[in-house]
């Protein structure tokens, strides 16, 4: 029994692993851009600056692409050059968009090569639109948790982050996060009255040695790719799979389309990096390349088959709003260099409709390139540096995530020259929702002793969170352009979707953990 899988991201990794464990022969086709080898794997972020022969090239890139120069749309951080492979453009994959800034990855490991490790299970309420419930997904959350290693605990957030089992102890809190959390604990009742809860982040980062990977050694290099692999990415699963019998990884393949006999997929057509085209006879095909890439393969195939491609609707993504804050109690203190770099706390806001709760990731500033932040202060750089270095230990960022629903106006379709056209219109009530959430969060931050600088709230464009989903939804209602509850296409009998395409609803959370669990669930039912 052979399965061909397109893509090598989070969904593909856990689909492939489960299918292999069930006895399937698994062939993965992928463009497969790879990460550069880790440099000085035991050096801390600070040590790298002194120990490397050319720290400028490592941190800023050969062409200084890591420098965030002043522009009208400044982000608070630059993208590390050693992750350039994650978002490197693929000329065969052409996009046109309206109201959306789409990102796609052709890296081995996919977009999760650049994730921050947040793993957040969906609740029963958030699965209401799904044809499956919590009980069907929970065992797969637990399996994935045991595979990848997740640190965290069941705490005040239990209502928003159900306990699926398989959790390790949480990571050590950095000093700033610890200070915020202890203030929360002292004022817990007041926060609860505001409908706000705080708890420890769930992170795919090891707090203890696990499956041959070491516990996080707090080198402060998370953003520059964890050199010890304590922070999980799907790349690790593919490294593990490649040594197993029955598994074949074919990199350097860009899957263009599949061919059918009318009702079944019979052949996969891919172009290699050398420009040659090759075909693969297919028994079962699994699209797990991510919502945009899977849609393009599907639409291109249907267009070749029927002369016209349909339009896929229901594209979803999480709107993200970044709210910087200053913890006044930590001004003028030294900042902590040797610590886990990403968010360690989560702050949620309850809503009347539990599906509309808001999810905020609290990241305290530790190691980072400082020039993007320093230049954003309304002062000359010398003065801004004085302010920044004395405020560094006090700075933090709340990343507010909002939920999204499938709506007909948000679509994917093929353009006349084969480009994937993405169209997105935010919901009409979005400004109201964002305004209400920010007002409550600002109040919560003030209760934590933090100052919220005016004018620095940054609304990221749609597409920036890269939590794309919803274009070929799972449903029990049999209709075209949907899948069964087990991810099986209703258009082609031996085709499965195993990525975010199938999500019928997107809560205000990072979806990667659910991508992995759901892909594993689908693999457990493929026949």
């Amino acid at each position, binding site marked *: 029994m052979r399965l061909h899988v397109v893509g090598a991201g989070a969904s593909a990794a856990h689909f492939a692993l489960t299918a292999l464990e069930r006895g399937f022969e698994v062939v993965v086709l992928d463009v497969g851009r790879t990460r550069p080898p880790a440099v000085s794997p035991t050096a801390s972020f600070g040590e790298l600056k002194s120990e490397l022969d050319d720290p400028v090239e490592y941190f800023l890139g050969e062409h200084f692409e890591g420098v965030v120069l*002043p522009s009208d749309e400044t982000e608070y951080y630059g993208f590390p050059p050693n992750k350039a492979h994650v978002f490197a453009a693929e000329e065969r994959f052409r996009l046109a968009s309206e109201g959306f800034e789409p990102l796609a990855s052709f890296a081995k490991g996919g977009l999760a090569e650049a994730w921050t490790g947040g793993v957040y299970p969906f609740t029963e309420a958030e699965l209401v639109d799904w044809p499956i419930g919590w009980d069907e997904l929970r065992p797969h959350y637990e399996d994935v948790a045991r595979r990848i290693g997740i640190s965290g605990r069941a705490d005040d957030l239990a209502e928003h982050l159900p306990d699926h089992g398989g959790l390790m102890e949480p990571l050590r809190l950095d000093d700033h996060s610890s200070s915020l959390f202890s203030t929360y604990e002292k004022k817990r009742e007041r926060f609860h009255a505001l409908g706000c809860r705080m708890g420890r982040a769930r992170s795919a980062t090891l707090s203890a040695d696990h499956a041959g990977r070491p516990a996080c050694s707090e080198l402060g290099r998370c953003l520059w790719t964890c050199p010890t692999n304590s922070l999980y990415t799907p790349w690790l699963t593919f490294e593990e799979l490649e040594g197993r019998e029955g598994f074949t990884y074919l990199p350097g393949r860009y899957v263009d389309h599949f061919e059918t006999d009318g009702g079944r997929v019979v052949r996969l057509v891919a172009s290699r990096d050398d420009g040659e085209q090759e075909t693969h006879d297919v028994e079962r095909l699994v699209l797990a390349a991510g919502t945009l890439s899977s849609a393009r393969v599907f639409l291109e195939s249907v267009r070749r088959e029927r002369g016209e491609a349909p339009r896929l609707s229901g594209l979803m993504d999480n709107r993200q709003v970044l709210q910087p804050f200053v913890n006044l109690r930590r001004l003028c203190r030294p*900042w902590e260099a040797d610590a886990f770099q990403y968010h360690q706390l989560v702050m949620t806001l309850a809503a009347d409709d539990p599906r509309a709760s808001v999810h905020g990731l609290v990241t305290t500033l530790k190691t980072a*390139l400082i020039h993007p932040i320093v230049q954003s202060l309304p002062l000359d750089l010398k003065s801004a540096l004085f302010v920044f270095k004395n405020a560094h230990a006090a700075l933090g960022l709340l990343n507010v995530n909002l939920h999204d629903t499938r709506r007909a106006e948000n679509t994917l379709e093929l353009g006349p020259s084969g480009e994937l056209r993405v169209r997105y219109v935010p919901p009409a009530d979005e400004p109201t929702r964002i305004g209400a959430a920010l007002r409550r969060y600002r109040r919560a931050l003030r209760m934590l002793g933090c100052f919220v600088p005016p004018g620095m709230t940054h609304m990221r464009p749609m597409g920036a969170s890269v939590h794309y989903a919803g274009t070929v939804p799972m449903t029990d209602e049999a209709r075209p352009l949907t899948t069964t509850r087990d991810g099986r296409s209703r258009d082609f009998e031996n085709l499965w979707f195993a990525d975010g395409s199938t999500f019928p609803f997107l809560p205000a959370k990072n979806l990667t953990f659910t991508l992995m669990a759901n892909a594993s669930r689908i693999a457990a039912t493929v026949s």
Partner: protein
Amino acid sequence: MADASEPTALLEEECRVFTRYLVGHDPDAGALAAYVRAHERDARLSHPDARARDEKLLLLARRGPRRARAADACARIFAPTSRLRRKLVCLLAVLEVRGSTALELDTADGGSSAVFLARCVLLCAAAGGRALAALLLLSFERLGERG
């Protein structure tokens, strides 16, 4: 050479002035080389400003660390994406990733929060004053050119 209008010697001198402005001493050889290399590889640094005033801020800044600070204060308010700001931010990026200057740039002075906040208020006022001074300097120079 980075650009016909920006010979290496000019960029090196510019780097020295700007580094003295930002950290109070000359750059090391590595920082100097990286600054020149950045101009060779990133065209945005050498691309002239559309407005003559923004280009004059760069000329003013090259004349010494104190004038660089005044020109920077002015540019931050009136020309935040100008070539001067691009060059200064690029240099800051270079200095912050080099072991020899990273700690100087990002180590807290200690002391009390109240004193720090008071200094912030004074800094804001001083930055405004510097910006105004830079504008006045440019205006006088323009009058001088005409007269």
